[in-house]
C-alpha cells in the first residue's frame, strides 16, 4: 500500500464527485484527504485527493476514473509523507 495523490479536472456538474468516490468505494479505498473547488467562470472544477492504494491497482483505478464522462484530465503521483 502506498499513498497517492490524484489530481483531477472535471466538468462542474452535480454527481461527479460521487461517481469518483464510488469507484474508490468499490475497491474499499479510503480517502485520507480531499479538496475540491469550482474554477470561476470556466465551468470546471478541480479535485485533489490523497488515498492509500495498492501499487498494482492504482493505474487501473485512475484509468477507471478517467472513463467518467465529465473527467477532463487526471494525473497521479506518490504523495510525500
Amino acid at each position, binding site marked *: 500500500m502506498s499513498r497517492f495523490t490524484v489530481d483531477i479536472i472535471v466538468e462542474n*456538474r452535480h*454527481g461527479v464527485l*460521487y461517481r469518483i468516490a464510488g469507484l474508490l468505494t468499490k475497491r474499499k479505498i479510503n480517502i485520507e484527504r480531499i479538496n475540491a473547488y469550482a474554477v470561476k467562470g470556466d465551468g470546471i472544477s478541480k479535485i485533489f485527493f490523497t488515498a492509500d492504494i495498492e501499487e498494482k491497482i492504482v493505474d487501473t483505478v485512475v484509468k477507471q476514473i478517467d472513463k467518467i464522462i465529465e473527467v477532463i484530465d487526471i494525473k497521479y503521483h506518490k504523495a510525500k509523507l
Partner: protein
Amino acid sequence: MKYTGAEILMRSLLQEKVEVIFGYPGGANMPIYDALYFYGKKFRHILVRHEQGAAHAAEGYARVTGKPGVCLVTSGPGATNLVTGIADAMMDSVPMVCITGQVAAEFLGSDAFQEADVVGITTPITKWNCQLTHAEEIPEAIAKAFYIASHGRPGPVVIDITKNAQFEKAEFKYPKNFYVKKLKTVNKFNSGDIKKAAEIINKAKKPLMLVGHGVLISKAEKEVLQVIEKTGMVAASTLHGLSSIPFDHPLYVGMIGMHGNYSPNKLTNSADVILAVGMRFDDRVTGKLSEYVPKAKVIHIDIDESEHHKNVRAHFPLLGNVKDVLKSLMPYLKKNNHDEWLGDFKELDKKELEFEKIRQQKNKNKITMNVVLSLLSEKTKNEAVIVADVGQNQMFSARYYKYKNPDSYITSGGLGTMGFALPATMGAKVGAPKRLVFAVIGDGGFQMTIQELGTIMQEKMPIKILLLNNEYLGMVRQWQQLFFEKRYSFTHMQNPDFINIAKSYGIKGEQVMERKKLEIALDRFINFQGPYLLEVKVEKEDNIFPMVATGTSVDDVRLE
C-alpha cells in the same frame, strides 16, 4: 413553437431513430405516456409486466441490432426495478438508454411518494446518468445519452426527468453539436505499436487468439477470419465471443473458460503469444490468475484503456476499436501456418470426444441437455438466435449449439442474471424479426421473469421457449455435488404445471418426458407459427463438463 417536455422527449427520441420502447407507466411518467398516446404510431411501445423485463428486453434488442435499447419507466419502484438490468448491461457492454420519471423538482429530497434517488442508485452501474428538472434540458441530454451509450465501449445511460419538466413548455431544438469529451478519439494505437505486435505474431510458434464480445460489437468478424487465416493462428472464443467465428472453421478450437472446451483451456498456458481481441480476461476465463499464460507475450486489443493490465498484464496493449486495430495489423502480418500447434488441439479434442461418447452411451435412452441442444442446432441448421439464461442451460447452449452466424448467442455473462432470457428474447425478436429466436431457460430462471409471458401474449410475439426442467437449480446443485459432498441445500424446486401456465396466457405448450418423443416434439416446436413453450424434462443430476474448478489453473481443466 413551444412543446411540453414530454413532447420534446418524443421528438428527441424520433431524432435518434428509436423504433421501439419497452416501458411501464406510473405516476411520475404519466405526461410522457400521454404524449406517447399521440406519438404512438411513430414508435412501437411494448408494455412489459415488470420493469426488469423492460431492461432485459432492451438489452436483447441492443444485442441483435447494435443500437441502444430504450426503456421508459416511472419513479421510485419503477426505476429501482430496472437496476438489475442496468447492472447487467454495464457488465456486458450493452448500449441502453433508460428514461425514468421522477417526482416534481419541488419535492426532490422530501421523501415524496414514489421518490427514490435514482441518479444516486444508478451511478455505479451506468456509463453516464443525469437528472433533468427543466424541459429545455431534454434535447441535449437525450442526444448525449444516445451518443454515450453507443460510442466507445457501449453501456447503459439513465436520464431521470422530473414530472414538472415533462409538463413544462419549451422550444424544441435538437442539438447537432454538443460536448462529450474523449469518446471521439477511441483509437489511440500508432503504427509503431502495430508493427511491434505484428512482429511478435510473425515470430510466434504457438499463437492463440482469444475473441471476445468486442469482435461482435465492432462487427470485426471478417477481420478476425482474415487475421487467423493469414497467420494460421489458432482461435478460441469467450462466452460472449461465441458466434463471431463459425463453429466449423478449421482454425477455431472452441470456447475457453470455466465450462469451455478441453483443448483451448488445456493449451492456453502453452501458447507463446496470446492475441486477446475485445475481451477482458474475466475470472471465469482465466482460472487461477497467477498461473495464467506464463509463457506468453500478451497482445491485448481493447477499446477501454482501463481493461489493459486490469487482470492480465499485457506486453503489447493496443487501444482502439477491434475492427480498426485488426485492419491496421493485417498488412504487417506474414503468411504462416501452425499445423503442429493446431494438431495439439485436435489431439486433445479427441479426448473430449471420447468422454462425450462414454457419456452418451451411459445416457442412451435418457434426455440430457446436450442432446436437446445438439438436436435443436441440427434441426435449425445452426442458424437460430439462442438467448440463454444463466446456469447449466446457459453452458449447454454455449457448448452444444453450433453457431454459424454472428450475433447468435445472447446471454447474461458478466452479471449472470437468472431471469434474463425470457425478456431478452422478446427484445431480440423485435430487433431481428426475420430470425428464429429461442429462449433456453432452466426451471429456476424461468420463474424469475415468468410474468413476461403476458407481454408475449399481448404483443403476439412468435417466441420459442425451450424450458430445460431438471427440478433443480442445476448449476448450484452441480457445485454442491462436486465441492460440498452432495449436500443439496435448497436447490430442489417443486414446480408448477408450466404447460398450464403457458395455456392461461394463450401460449401453446408441450411437455416431453421420453427420449423417443423428443425429436418429433422439437419439430413441432420449431415449425409452429407463434409463441410456443416446449418443456423438456431432462436428467435431474446431469453435469456440464469440461470444468475448470474455481481457484484452479486453466490447464487443470477436468473432463469429469
